[in-house]
């Protein structure tokens, strides 16, 4: 027999009458007590009873047809691509005039952790294979296994259409590029917590030679600079203890030049604590480029996809090497604030209820968003196990929209890692932040649950 206090909490939980703090506290109890979990499940009979106690009213005639029409309509709208749109012109994220300071925000509190997170993602990508591919508002690719199958192969297996290469990347191509980049970085990294810890320890203990991370960052930015309208955001556990964020906003060629220099400057400016040296898993300079240029890898017969809209036609073409690149940074007048202030400004301290239990692997993820097609992917690992009647819900913040845009929900069983593809529909949305929360199953209209992952906000 449960204590009265627990009984009371069970009642409130099932009725969804708890505030977020109460909910988070109670869910700790749920995790620890099978008896409480069982009681919560049993209480669903009350929910059903309260609904069925209402003398039934027949749903309106033709309501199914109207629902089907609406679904069809939504589906058609999703496929409408408007080029160029007024909204996209108004929100050119390339090099907006009047912007003071860099578009990119490279936040380095402990750069080693940035590398560790990236390598961890490499470890993740190097070991994924698709075990389930469900389709709904979003598409969850549940991953698992250790046979080394890549996401690129998984995409092909799951019949995801990948357009041939043109002068810019489709979302899927970008995901594959990211995968290759990270996979290469962590190619010898096996799926084991011990290996992960060892590698993180190795990185933390490296000497002052920062070439590895610097080179990697430069390569990273250079490769990404070919993606004109893509946003790549590393998400981090809002608990913040790893402390590393790397955010890349959609940017133009001119901005890319600046960003590369900026990244190098920052990496050169960080102290001993964050200095790194080379390790055995360095990124081959041509890996990503050759991968992306391998037409056979991407050619599935689909029509090519161009990416008009946000491109800055005045931008110079990015040179093949950073050292030779020329750029005009006159538009970026403000100096980059020191990393510490960036952290303070951009990283929102998580609410206490959002903090993860000590000892639980920190959730990490990367959100990739294609501005043109309004679709994106979130790849993640170490997400906490959900409780009954919960799901993860991804939110996209855009100043135009309040509450934030619901990018869809997913649940992933107890594996904690996978990929969620989302589609933001017909609206031109210009994300300023991504947040992943835990919400009641079925989703909610605005984020109220604990934050699991968040990107730096504007």
């Amino acid at each position: 027999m449960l204590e009265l206090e627990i009984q009371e909490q069970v009642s409130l939980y099932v009725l969804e009458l708890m505030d977020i703090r109460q909910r988070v506290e109670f869910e700790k109890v749920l995790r620890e007590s099978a008896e409480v979990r069982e009681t919560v499940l049993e209480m669903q009979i009350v929910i059903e009873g309260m609904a069925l106690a209402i003398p039934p009213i027949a749903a309106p005639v033709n309501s199914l047809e109207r629902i089907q029409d609406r679904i069809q309509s939504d589906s058609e709208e999703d496929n409408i691509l408007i080029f160029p749109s007024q909204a996209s012109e108004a929100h050119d994220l390339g090099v907006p005039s009047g912007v003071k300071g860099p578009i990119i925000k490279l936040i380095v509190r402990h750069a080693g952790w940035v590398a560790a997170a990236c390598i961890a993602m490499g470890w993740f990508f190097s070991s994924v294979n698709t075990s389930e591919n469900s389709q709904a508002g979003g598409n969850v690719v549940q991953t698992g296994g250790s046979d080394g199958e890549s996401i690129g192969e998984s995409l092909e297996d799951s019949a995801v259409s990948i357009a041939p290469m043109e002068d810019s990347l489709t979302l899927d191509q970008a995901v594959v590029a990211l995968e290759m980049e990270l996979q290469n970085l962590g190619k010898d990294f096996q799926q084991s917590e011990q290996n992960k810890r060892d590698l993180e320890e190795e990185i933390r203990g490296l000497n002052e030679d920062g070439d590895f991370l610097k080179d990697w960052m430069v390569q990273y930015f250079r490769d990404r600079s070919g993606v004109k309208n893509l946003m790549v955001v590393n998400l981090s556990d809002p608990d913040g203890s790893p402390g590393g964020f790397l955010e890349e906003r959609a940017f133009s060629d001119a901005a890319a030049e600046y960003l590369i220099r900026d990244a190098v400057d920052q990496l050169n400016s960080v102290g001993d604590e964050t200095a790194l040296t080379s390790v055995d898993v360095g990124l081959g300079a041509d890996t990503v480029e050759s991968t992306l240029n391998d037409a056979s890898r991407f050619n599935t017969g689909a029509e090519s996809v161009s990416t008009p809209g946000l491109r800055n036609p005045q931008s110079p073409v990015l040179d093949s090497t950073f050292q030779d690149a020329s750029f005009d940074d006159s538009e970026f007048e403000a100096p980059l604030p020191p990393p510490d202030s960036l952290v303070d400004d951009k990283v929102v301290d998580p609410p206490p209820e959002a903090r993860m239990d000590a000892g639980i692997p920190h959730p990490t993820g990367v959100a990739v968003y294609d501005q043109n097609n309004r679709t994106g992917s979130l790849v993640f690992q170490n997400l906490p196990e959900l409780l009954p009647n919960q799901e993860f819900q991804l939110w996209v913040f855009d100043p135009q929209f309040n509450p934030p845009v619901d990018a869809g929900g997913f649940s992933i069983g107890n594996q904690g890692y996978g990929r969620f593809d989302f589609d933001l529909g017909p609206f031109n949305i210009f994300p300023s932040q991504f947040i992943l929360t835990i919400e009641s199953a079925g989703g909610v209209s605005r984020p109220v649950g604990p934050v699991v992952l968040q990107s730096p906000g504007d």
Partner: protein
Amino acid sequence: MLRKTALRDPAALAALHGSFADPVYSLAYKILQNHEEAEEVLQDVFVRVWKRSVTFDPKKSSAFTWVIMIARGLSLDRLRSRSRKKELMESWKSESVHTTASDPDSSRQSVLSSELSDQISVALGKLPSKQRESLELAFYKGLTQGEIAERTREPLGTIKARIRRGMFKLRELLKDVYA
């Protein structure tokens, strides 16, 4: 059905609609007291089910509970956004499950689940009236314990106890119904 719906099977959606549309609509109407809004909620619920059924985990809840909680959440969202919420709250004061839920348009009475509904209503009627009132205010109106205490002018501790006792007693009563 939800699994098939997750795979974008229109027939599964239709089957789901056939099973759940009436209780979803009834609940939405119960909460909103407005047929147009109830139908909008009905549509919202099934569109969400269509898009979100991939997230449904049968190990964690029944499909019906999952759908009903979506319906309740969407209905309460609408209710809370209404400027006339206060007016509805007042009208709710004198209502009970047994006297208000009937649709004035008798032609719309659903016969599919009326028997079960009657049995559950009887079970609910076995609850002490104050427990039932607290549960109804919490479930159908989404009021917090504090709001219920304020509304009924009862101490907060009393309301907490009523909800707890009501929930656990109703669980036992409903077990008998389903048995």
